[in-house]
């Protein structure tokens, strides 16, 4: 009897389990086709509206170590006086983009431990005939060179080259730009031309009538059955920097044969604009081989930079400068070699850049004084005239489409000068360990 009951229990259990699928199949509901159509249409309408609004962003948290506490650095900003190690949120970007068919509105903010700041705020309008011409107005990346507008979340080194940070602080400016860039259906889709007028003082309110012109032409094409991509570009910047005083310094030969700053103190200098003029060229090349993707990028810039006595940085302020103006001929260069290892998640990065803020003086000729007969006079040269070269060596691990890990060492070398404190290379090499999350 007991055996019979056990068998019955097992049989019933088995039947319950096997019938489970049949029961769930019977519970499936079939709606009439026209009702399904209505529901789909409603959902599609809502989805179409929602698809216009896009949220993207990325977070970069990092740990850094510098050779000596308190050193100035272009690897994410100067170190505090008592610190040679730091944690920081280097970037915490949130970008909101609303796309209509021929218009777009973008706002981007940056949230870090230093506070909240805005990066981009612009509207973009595209012509609805050829889809080739667009007008952008607001605050956005200056259209110069390649790396300025190459997003930080893609860039293999933690920071942009020193010359870019110095000449284009914040990358962005307030202005309007027209772009010619045919759509991908056009046979000319490999040409892009930008031309714009900008305030010239970064993400700040305008304070004068001077408008700077930036023009750029870039060409980009694929080849060899989409295994090669190459690009070249040329850029031009012409603008002015407000002369806050009548003292205008420019480089002239000195009595001892070296170069130094000599002053022009005409009253008419005050309130005039000092010429700010840059010429740039850039090239990019990527090839996909069985050994992995290899990428080479390079940029060169030269020109004339009006700035202050102790820094060659471009103006980045909402108020007119009140200091003397120094005109320096400069040049800068950066090159990347990036090798993906055999289509794995690993990349090796080597970067080289230089920034020479004053190409007329070098090495020991960068000195603070010179002999004029019996007298010792000031050359007005400073650390702002010193050339820096930086080698960077990095490893990047692409965990997935959201997470990237970077280890990067920047070997920073300044030229040896006669200036006090700058006779030798400064201890400002930086190790950066970074985690990035992107969405």
């Amino acid at each position, binding site marked *: 009897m007991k055996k019979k009951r*056990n068998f019955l*229990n*097992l049989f019933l*259990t*088995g039947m319950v*389990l*096997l019938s*489970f*699928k049949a029961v769930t199949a019977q519970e499936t509901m079939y709606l009439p086709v026209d009702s399904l159509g209505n529901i789909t249409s409603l959902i599609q309408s809502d989805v179409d509206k929602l698809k216009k609004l896009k949220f993207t962003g990325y977070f970069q948290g990092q740990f850094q170590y510098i050779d000596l506490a308190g050193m100035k650095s272009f690897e994410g900003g100067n170190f505090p006086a008592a610190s040679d190690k730091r944690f920081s949120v280097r970037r915490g970007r949130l970008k909101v983009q609303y796309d209509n068919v021929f218009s777009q509105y973008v706002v981007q903010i940056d949230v870090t431990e230093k506070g909240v700041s805005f990066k981009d705020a612009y509207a973009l309008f595209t012509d609805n005939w050829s889809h080739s011409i667009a007008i952008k107005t607001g605050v956005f990346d200056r259209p110069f060179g390649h790396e300025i507008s190459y997003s930080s979340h*893609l860039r293999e080194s933690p920071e942009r080259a020193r010359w870019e940070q110095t000449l284009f602080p914040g990358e962005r400016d307030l202005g309007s730009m027209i772009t010619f860039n045919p*759509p*991908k*259906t*056009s*046979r000319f889709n490999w040409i892009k031309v930008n031309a714009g007028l900008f305030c010239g003082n970064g993400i700040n309110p305008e304070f004068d009538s001077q408008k700077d012109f930036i023009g750029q032409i870039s060409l980009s094409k*694929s080849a060899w*059955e*989409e*295994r*090669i*991509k190459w690009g070249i570009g040329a850029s031009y910047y012409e603008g002015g920097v407000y002369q806050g005083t009548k003292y205008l310094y420019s480089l002239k030969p000195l009595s001892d044969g070296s170069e130094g700053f000599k002053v022009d103190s005409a009253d008419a200098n005050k309130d005039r604009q000092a010429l700010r003029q840059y010429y740039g060229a850039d090239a990019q090349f*990527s090839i*996909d081989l069985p050994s992995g*993707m290899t990428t080479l990028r390079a940029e060169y810039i030269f020109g004339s930079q009006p700035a202050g006595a102790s820094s060659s940085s471009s103006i980045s302020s909402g108020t007119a400068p009140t200091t003397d103006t120094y005109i320096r001929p400069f040049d800068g260069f950066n090159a990347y070699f990036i090798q*993906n290892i055999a*289509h*794995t*998640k690993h990349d090796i990065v080597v970067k080289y850049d230089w920034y020479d803020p004053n190409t007329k003086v070098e090495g020991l000729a960068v000195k603070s004084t010179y002999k004029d007969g019996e007298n010792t006079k000031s050359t007005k040269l400073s650390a702002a005239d010193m050339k820096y070269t930086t080698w960077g060596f990095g490893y990047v*691990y*692409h*965990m*997935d*489409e959201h997470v*990237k890990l970077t280890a990067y060492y920047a070997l920073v070398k300044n030229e040896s000068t006669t200036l006090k404190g700058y006779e030798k290379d400064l201890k400002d090499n930086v190790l950066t360990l970074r985690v990035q999350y992107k969405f």
Partner: protein
Amino acid sequence: MKKFLILVALTSITFAFTLPLATIKIKGSDTLLPLAQKWAENYMKNNTNISITVTGGGSGVGIAALIDGTTDIATASRKIKMDERLKLQEAGKAFKEVIVANDALSVIVNPGNKVSQLTREQIEGIFTGKFTNWNQVGGEDMKIVAYSRESSSGTFEFFKDHVLNKKNFASSCLMMPATGSIIQSISQTKGAIGYVGMAYVNDKVKDISVSYDKGKTYVLPTMQNATNKTYPIVRPLYFYYLSKVEKNVKPFIDWILTASGQKVVADIGYIPLQK
């Protein structure tokens, strides 16, 4: 305890027979859609523990889905682009490419259209807007209505690169989201012309012979002419998949490359791979 063990055993056996062990998602080319669906159907008959879903949308849509991880296999009627390779590399995703079949592109017109052959130059002229009336290319006095696939389509890319010699489509060209809509439109419009994969051609439309030697010889898109390479508009069809799902998808792809899988290609109207 014994009852409990028997209950667990019964439960396991039940689930073993009712739930698939693996799923494969395939997305992408409209050209490949009927072929991929037939492959999936045939493969699942002999592999009941595999569930394969197939959707279209275009080659570009499929590869975008591969990049963002929402498909296992992206089907494409064009090669993956360098920008797409760079995006996959940035996402840390290694991928593999397999040619699974070939396809002939048919240029089709309405069955009521008297024109039955065109040179490549004439086809280029029609789709770039140089010719706007059929009487300019040997037909009757009738406006030409040109249909094309949208730019996300691999078929669009191939046609533009290989037939139009990279020239732009005329702005008057009507862009359609899917092959089926091109067939439908051409069947209803007497002056219409378009291009579709050979497998899609049915009795509602008429395919025309094409000449690539300025009118010396005209070749009709047939299986034989595509296989013996006398028909000039033939292209490979691709599967792309991420290396990390290779274990899951490779048995299916390996079967596609066997004689059984390639027989499906011929049956549907595509061009099997040469042995």
